[in-house]
């Protein structure tokens, strides 16, 4: 392995890692701002111009809070919980293609950390690992509310992974590959998968709300019933890690949805732009487009959060098992039949 390759990947990983942290950090501010605007308020505006430094102030506050580990908790697992949550949240970004290959000083640089041919499976693995942080943290707290939250998180994530996987199968029938890079390349221009898989997209969207524990599926941490849910006993930066992991997850799942269904870095008229701007700036514009899509999804996540109330637990299970799974299976059947007929013609 040549040195330039190592440096290139190292720089890319660092940039993506810090970018997802910064996006997650400012998502906390955006969440409060959007919540305020949807409720006819202004939101935080004291720290810095327009409240720009609010996330830094929040972070500093988190660090200076007293750190409490309950006496009866299992200490190792108590610390492992939030660490695992944030670790799994961060490694999901590795397979997402952030842009077309760019040309720097005669070298073709791929804007993707690694193009493994089972990219979607990798994302699924990481997402299902994410619930372990919540489960371990909730169990190790030795608190009944935490345990209830952890149980809910586990059953909810398992229930919603099934329709999510099934909706992806229909997508794979269309694309014929698991590699995220190839899926994105197939959506060149305006051939976005949303046009072929509208139902699949809606199913995937609903399931990703459930997987990231966002309202209306935030049962693991519902304050009105379970105090704080799985993070009741957590304080200081360990609590911060749990909350932060949720925002990183939101960023990653927005990126996955944009990549799988909304063309990733593709946009109508991209060939013309690429010819005009050259091999460095053209792909970078594509990257900007991808980020615009991601931010639109993040806005959507927050918009839904401040509109829809939390589901009751039986409603959650009914929706998952009796509505989403049949729909996902129907989607697979329709897609399969359609592809067969289309190939015959």
């Amino acid at each position, binding site marked *: 392995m040549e040195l330039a390759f190592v440096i290139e990947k190292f720089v890319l990983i660092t940039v993506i890692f810090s970018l997802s942290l910064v996006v997650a950090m400012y998502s906390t501010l955006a969440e409060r701002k959007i919540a305020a605007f949807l409720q006819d*308020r*202004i939101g935080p505006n004291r720290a810095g111009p327009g409240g720009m430094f609010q996330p830094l102030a929040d972070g500093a506050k988190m660090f200076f809070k007293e750190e409490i580990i309950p006496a009866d908790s299992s200490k190792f697992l108590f610390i492992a919980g939030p660490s695992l949550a944030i670790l799994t949240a961060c490694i999901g970004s590795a397979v997402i293609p952030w842009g077309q290959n760019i040309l720097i000083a005669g070298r073709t640089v791929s804007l993707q950390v690694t193009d493994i041919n089972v990219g979607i499976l990798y994302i699924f693995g990481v997402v299902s690992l994410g619930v372990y942080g919540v489960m371990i943290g909730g169990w190790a707290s030795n608190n009944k509310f935490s345990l209830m939250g952890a149980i809910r998180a586990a059953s909810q994530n398992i229930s919603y992974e099934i329709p999510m996987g099934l909706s992806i199968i229909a997508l794979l029938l269309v694309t014929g590959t698991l590699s995220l890079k190839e899926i994105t390349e197939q959506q060149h221009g305006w051939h976005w998968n949303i046009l072929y898989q509208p139902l699949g997209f809606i199913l995937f969207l609903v399931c990703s709300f459930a997987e990231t524990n966002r309202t209306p599926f935030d049962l693991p941490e519902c304050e009105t019933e379970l105090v704080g849910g799985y993070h009741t006993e957590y304080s200081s930066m360990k609590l911060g890690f749990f909350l932060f992991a949720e925002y990183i997850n939101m960023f990653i799942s927005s990126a996955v949805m944009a990549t799988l269904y909304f063309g990733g870095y593709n946009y109508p008229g991209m060939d013309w732009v690429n010819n005009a701007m050259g091999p460095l700036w053209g792909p970078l514009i594509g990257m900007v487009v991808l980020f615009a899509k991601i931010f639109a999804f993040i806005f959507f996540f927050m*918009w*839904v959060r401040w509109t*829809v109330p939390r589901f009751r637990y039986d409603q959650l299970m009914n929706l998952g098992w*009796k*509505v989403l799974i049949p729909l996902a299976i129907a989607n697979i059947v329709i897609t399969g039949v359609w592809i067969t007929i289309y190939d015959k013609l």
Partner: protein
Amino acid sequence: MNFWERLYLPAIFQGMGITFKHMFKKKETVFYPEVEREFSENWRGMHSLKRDEQGRERCTACGLCALSCPAEAITMIAAERQKGEENLYREEKYAAVYEINMLRCIFCGLCEEACPKEAIYLDGPIVPSDYLRKDFIYGKDKLVEEPLKS
């Protein structure tokens, strides 16, 4: 509920339309320390001990305000006016010490009603927050009106 309703999607989209409209509505926020909301006419805020038209303190330390106070927030020590202090105090007796504990005060306005000399009114601003309990006991330095500008 039929299948379409059990999807929740139509209801959710309807709700999202409503919340989205609210993004562009006029914001109700009042930027408090910089901008103050207008108080109603019968608003009762911080007390002030009034002076008469010649700038003399009206309070005669009769103690009716302290007596009427349901929260027992007012204490005072009376003193006799000396010769040469006629320009400071209107009556022969005045309050040497007049303290209101703002943590006890319920801003009911009974002291204002009890006062026969029209010496106390609850016409001030909101009582500011503070760190220590002792700082909430307001003496004459904070309560008495500014002297008249001659």
